[in-house]
């Protein structure tokens, strides 16, 4: 059998339980991308204003760090927002179990119709 994340059998199960560890790239993606944007925009600004690309190194450091920080804050806010939303849904599901029966598992053979080639 193929191993993988456990498949939820009920809606409640889907909304609860420990979340899987996110991959490294998506964990640091937002601060990393914002930092790169900050750095390259300083380089571009230097180039456009006829300065050497590396002049004013403090600008590179400050803007990359600042934008990376902003990226981190925004990403954290988004994660928190989604966690709150899941908690609200979970609470609702807990209060109304009768509306959320366990999933009925289906297989593709039940969904797909048999193919009859007709021209």
């Amino acid at each position: 059998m193929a191993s993988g994340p456990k498949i939820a059998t009920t809606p409640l199960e889907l909304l609860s339980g420990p979340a899987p560890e996110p991959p490294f790239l998506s964990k640091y993606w937002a601060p990393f991308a914002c930092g790169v944007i900050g750095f390259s925009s300083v380089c571009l600004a230097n180039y456009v204003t006829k300065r050497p690309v590396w002049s004013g190194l403090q600008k590179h450091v400050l803007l990359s760090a600042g934008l990376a920080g902003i990226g981190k804050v925004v990403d954290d806010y988004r994660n928190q927002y989604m966690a709150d939303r899941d908690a609200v849904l979970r609470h609702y599901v807990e209060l109304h179990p009768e509306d959320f029966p366990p999933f009925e598992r289906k297989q593709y053979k039940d969904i797909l119709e048999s193919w009859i080639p007709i021209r």
Partner: protein
Amino acid sequence: MSTFVRLGLKRIIQNQALNNNFNQKNVTFIRTITSKTTRMSQEDVSKPSPWPYNEKGYNLFNYFFDKTTSRLDENSKIIVVEGPLAAGKSKCAKQLASELDMLYLPEANLDMMYINNYGFDQRKLDSELPESCISWDVMDFLRNPKHRHTLRFQLQQYVVKLSQYIDALAHVLSTGQGVILDRCVYSDFVFAEAMFSQGFISKLGIKKYYEFRDNTIGELLRPHLIIYLDIPVPKVLENIKKRGISYEQDSKALTPQYLSVMEKHYKQNYLKELSKHSELLVYDWTDAGDVEIVIEDIERIDFNKYDAQDTHLKDWDHKMEEDWASLRHKYADKKEILMNYCNIPCFEVPELVVDAEDANTYHNVIEEAPGNKFLPGYNTHLGDTGTIFKMSSPHRNTLPLRERRTS
């Protein structure tokens, strides 16, 4: 009731202020330009130190803390020395400047434009440039006046003079020190007219020249005083011989006709128009008169004799502190915007149109020239240091005080 109290208080305070002014201080009214020697005998009036307009901006926040009129005094004037070629203008202007303790700006020339901040002369690159883009300064014009570049040369002269006049205004308003100019942007058209009369520039060309002039000249404040050093045309030719600048002596342009057209436009257009606004002193300078006498005459001029309805010195008649502040801001900080008024398309004048390919070569060559690669202060290969942490750019593009080369 409160109105009574307020008005009453105001009256008491004002009366006291008036009494203070007239009883305790010894008020003397000084109205004229004074020379250094006259000033020495007078009481020293403390003024704020000159505003470094080349490094620091003056915006409307500064206006609350730094009053422009606090630096302006009777010597904060713009004086222009005019006259035909080789009349002894620059010598006279220099002496006047040192006597009156003013700033002398040498006659605007294309050396101010062609030589960059690192002392590299762009004219050295002419061999690499296409014929349509080579440099053309006064030396080339005098040697070969019928060339198609004459019009471009004359327009560039105008632009440099405009730039210099903006600097002069910025200097007067920011530091309170007077400025003495050797010819100015207002008189530049006499050269264009003389060139046109001799067929050096075309009819379209002179039309374009006046388009440049009309588009920009209204932004400036006319000078306070014009000193015209008059010498007759034969004497001009003699002086040119005596001065011995090779390209002037052998010039095909400096004919008696050319010089007399210049003189005609100087006297009948320029002086006539400007004397409606500025004070005018005219001297027969055939035998190079005495500058001391000029100074005495200047000291006698009363610049405050005109009332608000008079056209004289109208450009300098501002009642509100804010008006002075915005003028100072305009000339000290917004020079680039004023210079952009020279950005006039010239596609209908064939002398001014350059092939796209030639223009491309020109831009590439100029970009590669030493000192043009980066902003001034950022060219490490030319000895600039500390660029790794440097952020500043030159605040203002002020023309250098560079004399015309004579060989």
